[in-house]
């Protein structure tokens, strides 16, 4: 007990008797660690936010769309049409590709919606009954169309939350009728809002694909298959995502009779892939921020070394006295090394507090300073890393001064002023 306590209390004494100097030395480490914690928390926060957004869209979703140049609205293409995806493709995928839980082909058009005096132009998705499940959507009120509705081409619609508000205000739209292109549809449900985002369902209307074809003419390929604009599907096992993409590519290339040298006439986007590429990008950003902050930590470490060297010089006589009293080289070495480690450890702990505080304040202050929404995330690994790096810096930069101190000749040290 004494064996451990005595060197610690000696080191503490060295720090406590030079308060101002110790605090200034610590400040360098405090700023460095705080910078690491707060900047890394911003990076980690951005990553977490992006991943959460993707998760809300469904991380196991794969979307297939027609090749480049595919226009919305079922415009009949000229020769060499790019409207290549069909209902039959969707059928084949659902039957022949493994690890798929649901397939939802859909065709979308931009149509004029009119209710009383109000009208709006909105994307209308002609869909099958699995559309809700595949796109991870929930109803706020009403119901979704049934398989029977789909079979008979019932003129019913489910509205995105923004569309419902634009057309009906605060009144319930359920059971109301509205004009859509050349047909009249009855509203049977309203979707829960998903918030703003790329291609948000809040701004769309969903009707049975069979009903869409009553106002927008059905497009057929040369083989007589019914064209759809996209096929969305869910993978039952996320880890098989890449395999599913490969299988679908092979199947569609066969079905579309593409030669070995021909480019794909469709695009497959997997959320899994998107998530991982975004995570890589934000991870790189986090690392970059951490590196910048790390430099300030390094500068703080050099400050510690500087102070320790000065401290050894200033305390040469003290070292001589201690040696005369029986201190071995090791005792002196440990004393100064512990002082450096003590300073940087305390600096690290305070730095974590300051950094954590900054990470807490940034999301609150960022919007008021016109920087938009910001999320920060302090994780245990950053904290442990920052504190251990700061102690490591203390040991590393304290090593040389401590060694210098231990090597002093006691007679010369006692003679120094």
């Amino acid at each position, binding site marked *: 007990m*004494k064996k451990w306590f*005595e060197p610690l209390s*000696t080191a503490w*004494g060295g720090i406590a*008797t030079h308060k101002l100097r110790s605090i200034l030395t610590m400040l360098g480490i405090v700023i460095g660690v705080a910078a690491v914690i707060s900047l890394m928390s911003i990076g980690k926060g951005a990553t977490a936010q992006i991943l959460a957004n993707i998760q809300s869209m469904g991380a196991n979703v794969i979307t297939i769309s027609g090749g480049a140049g595919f226009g919305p609205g079922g415009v009949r293409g000229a020769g060499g049409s790019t409207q290549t995806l069909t209902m039959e493709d969707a059928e084949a995928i659902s039957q022949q590709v493994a690890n798929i839980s649901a397939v939802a082909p859909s065709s979308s058009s931009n149509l004029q919606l009119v209710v009383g005096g109000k009208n709006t132009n909105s994307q209308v998705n002609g869909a099958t009954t699995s559309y809700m499940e595949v796109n991870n959507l929930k109803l706020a009120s009403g119901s979704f169309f049934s398989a029977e509705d789909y079979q008979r081409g019932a003129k019913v619609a489910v509205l995105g939350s923004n569309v419902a508000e634009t057309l009906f205000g605060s009144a319930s739209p359920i059971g109301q009728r509205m004009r859509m292109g050349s047909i009249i549809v009855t509203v049977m449900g309203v979707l829960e809002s998903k918030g703003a985002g790329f291609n948000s369902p809040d701004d769309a209307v969903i009707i049975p694909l069979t009903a869409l074809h009553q106002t927008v003419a059905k497009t057929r390929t040369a083989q007589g298959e019914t064209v759809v604009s996209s096929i969305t599907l869910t993978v039952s096992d996320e880890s098989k995502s890449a395999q599913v993409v490969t299988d679908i590519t092979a199947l569609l290339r066969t079905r579309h009779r593409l030669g070995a040298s021909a480019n794909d006439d469709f695009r497959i986007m997997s959320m899994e892939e998107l998530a991982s590429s975004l995570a890589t990008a934000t991870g790189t950003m986090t690392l970059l921020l951490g590196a910048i902050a790390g430099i300030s930590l390094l500068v703080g470490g050099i400050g510690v070394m500087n102070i320790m060297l000065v401290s050894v010089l200033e305390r040469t*006589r*003290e070292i*001589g*006295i*201690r*040696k*005369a*009293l*029986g*201190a*071995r*080289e*090791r*005792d002196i070495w440990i004393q100064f090394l512990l002082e450096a480690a003590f300073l940087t450890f305390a600096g690290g702990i305070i730095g974590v507090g300051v950094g954590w505080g900054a990470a807490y304040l940034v999301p609150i202050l960022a919007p008021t300073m016109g920087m938009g929404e910001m999320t920060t995330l302090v994780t245990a690994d950053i904290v442990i890393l920052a504190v251990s790096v700061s102690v490591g810096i203390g040991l590393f930069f304290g090593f040389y001064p401590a060694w210098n101190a231990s090597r002093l000749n*006691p*007679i010369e040290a*006692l003679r120094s002023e």
Partner: protein
Amino acid sequence: MIRLEGITKVYPMGKRELTVLRGINLNIKQGELVAVMGPSGSGKTTLLNLIGCLDKPTSGKYHLDGREVSRLSSGELAKVRGQKIGFVFQTFNLLPRLSALANVELGLRYSGGGDRQRTMEALAKVGLSDRASHRPTELSGGEQQRVAIARALVKNPPLILADEPTGNLDSRSGEEIISILTTLHTEQGITLLMVTHDANIAHQCQRIIQLKDGQVVAEEKP
């Protein structure tokens, strides 16, 4: 207690060499009170440093308490200093930021660890119990030297070395210090070796060793 055989000490001074001690032979028995005198530059302090294990002789043998210590490593010498030798310096050499008590406790730090009771006892022996919490700057020169003596004796060393302990003090404080040291010697049987310029002080010792040019030129018993 101390047996020096043909001790020499040579310091390299650039290309030349400076010979400070030239073949010192000396025996000091346990419990002796010895003064070392000599003009400046005669090697008194160097001799004291060698005896105090702060330095190693260039040649010769040094037996301390029956053990040959002239070839020990610096770590082993530090251990010997911690266990057997108490130092009293001309300039006191107290740590200015520590209290008298903490300074005395430092005497135990490298030889077994602090012990508040022994520390207080040592301060009591030099008559400074009521000044334990004072810092050196708040003490007179004589009081500072008494703290230094307490620090030297707190670990009960068999040998105390004093290098001109009264050199920085007025004559009254000097006398007090000498009386404390001689009392320690007579009451506790500590071997005491003292470098001094003052013939009066030297004559209170049992033996006076005269050094000149690094050699013992005379020994007398007052």
